[in-house]
């Protein structure tokens, strides 16, 4: 059966046989770059469509249904509109930083994808520090938002940027603790090791209650980190018009919008990798008929299925809960999530030392 791993290996072999020393690497860079840009475009189209459909269904509406079959080409039409729109730069803005900010946000969303394992053996960069790379790079994305907010020369943008900064800096802590719970059980930061450690069962099944708590905390924290409702104070449209991207239009706005959805994809992919076993199929027991059926489903489908399930959950949050106030937001983090995740981390450590997990 042709798998993505074989395809990637064959391309690698073929390039190495046909070209001299630096060329295979450079050509692979180009191929990976093209794939990532293609993935970005696809994610933008699919996720925005999904968001609009999910929101419509939860509010008993129909959602987009005019452009193409069941409205499938609506987002493509919207993208076309955004491309031909004029990208305005307001008069009092710091032009250089204003135009730089969307690209920073975008580039960070791209870089953060590097260690993700999309299918069995399909990974761009199996870096030693794996999950630490995620937390490190995602902490930079706040800079792009602060830059956009300040350079717009608009008080709403600045307020949105400050809120976003406070929010991301504080929720990074509990997200980090939730990730650490898995790192303690696996004993390694590498993504491939973490995925392989779940071959006999996903951590959410093997890890008992503490991992469940860690998973819930992780989902809450990443929802806050990606500035999604109910934590969307940074762009709270009823208070700050659109927060840090109030002044952006055309393609520059589209980059912010795209980066938001790509960030959601990345954090959900990370959640699927850490807690739901990455590309590992669902197995119960050993050597049963059920396990063999599950193995027939390709690993990339498993990964994408889990990721999109988590994305659906995050969208479910957005269309169910009202927005938090800033004091409620900080209360939730510092008085609830942080102490609970710290105690939870101790429990997980105890579990790992005593070998209570399966």
């Amino acid at each position, binding site marked *: 059966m042709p798998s993505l791993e074989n395809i990637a290996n064959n391309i690698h072999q073929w390039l190495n046989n046909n070209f001299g020393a630096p060329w295979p690497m450079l050509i692979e860079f180009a191929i990976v770059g093209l794939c990532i840009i293609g993935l970005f475009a696809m994610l933008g189209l699919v996720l925005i469509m999904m968001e609009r459909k999910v929101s419509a269904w939860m509010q008993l509406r129909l959602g987009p249904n005019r452009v193409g079959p069941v409205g499938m080409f609506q987002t493509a039409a919207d993208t076309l509109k955004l491309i031909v729109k004029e990208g305005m730069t307001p008069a009092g803005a710091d032009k250089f930083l204003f135009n730089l900010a969307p690209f920073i946000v975008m580039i960070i969303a791209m870089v953060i994808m590097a260690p993700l394992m999309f299918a069995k053996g399909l990974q761009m960069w199996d870096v030693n520090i794996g999950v630490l790379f995620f937390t490190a790079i995602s*902490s930079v994305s*706040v800079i792009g938002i602060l830059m956009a907010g300040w350079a717009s020369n608009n008080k709403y943008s600045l307020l949105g940027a400050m809120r976003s900064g406070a929010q991301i800096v504080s929720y990074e802590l509990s997200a980090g603790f939730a990730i650490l719970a898995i790192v303690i059980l696996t004993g390694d930061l590498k993504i491939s090791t973490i995925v392989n450690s779940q071959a006999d069962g996903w951590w959410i099944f093997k890890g008992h209650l503490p991992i469940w708590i860690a998973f819930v905390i992780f989902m809450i924290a990443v929802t806050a980190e990606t500035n999604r409702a109910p934590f969307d104070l940074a762009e709270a449209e009823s208070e700050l018009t659109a927060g840090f991207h109030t002044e952006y239009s055309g393609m520059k706005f589209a980059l912010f919008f795209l980066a938001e959805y790509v960030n959601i994809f990345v954090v959900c992919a990370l959640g699927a990798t850490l807690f739901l076993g990455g590309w590992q199929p669902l197995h119960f027991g050993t050597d049963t008929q059920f396990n063999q059926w599950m193995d027939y489903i390709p690993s990339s489908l498993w990964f994408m299925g889990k990721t999109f399930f988590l994305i659906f959950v995050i969208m479910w949050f957005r269309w169910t809960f009202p927005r938090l106030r800033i004091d409620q937001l900080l209360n939730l983090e510092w008085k609830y999530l942080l102490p609970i995740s710290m105690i939870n981390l101790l429990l997980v450590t105890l579990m790992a030392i005593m070998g209570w997990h399966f």
Partner: protein
Amino acid sequence: MTASQVIFYILSAFILGTAVLSVTTAKIFRSAIWLLFSLIGVAGLYFWLEVEFIAAVQIVVYVGGIVVLIIFSIFLTQQSGKEMLKASMLRNIASILSVLFGFALTYNLIYNNNFQAKDKPFDWTVNKIGTQMLETGENGYALPFEVVSILLLAAMVGCIVIAIKSKPEEKNG
């Protein structure tokens, strides 16, 4: 010149260029952003050296922590969008001189001590760093680690004491 050297020179030029821009620009926020790029360049240098852990820590601590704090304090000051005053001639000369002296000192140290490049690959893993950090035996860092933790704990307690609201007496009971 090998590809590795080319990357090194590009990274160094990036770090130095953004560092110079960060001290010469007239707007304080832009200067913070140039500092950020300079620190990211240093992290890139660590990635180039294949010490990913140090690079990630560089990004977490300096880029994600310190520069964000600097930017926050810039936001909270007044007139952060205004151009700063031109520095006086004496100050410019003094800063150029101090930079030259610093460069001379570093160059002198490197030139006189004749550091040797290590042939075998740099061996590190996160596990090793962790073990050594908590080791009590020879080459262990348990004591400095604990001392630094206590220092940080004291700093945090101090912060809370400063920030805490003193409640009126009657409500305490």
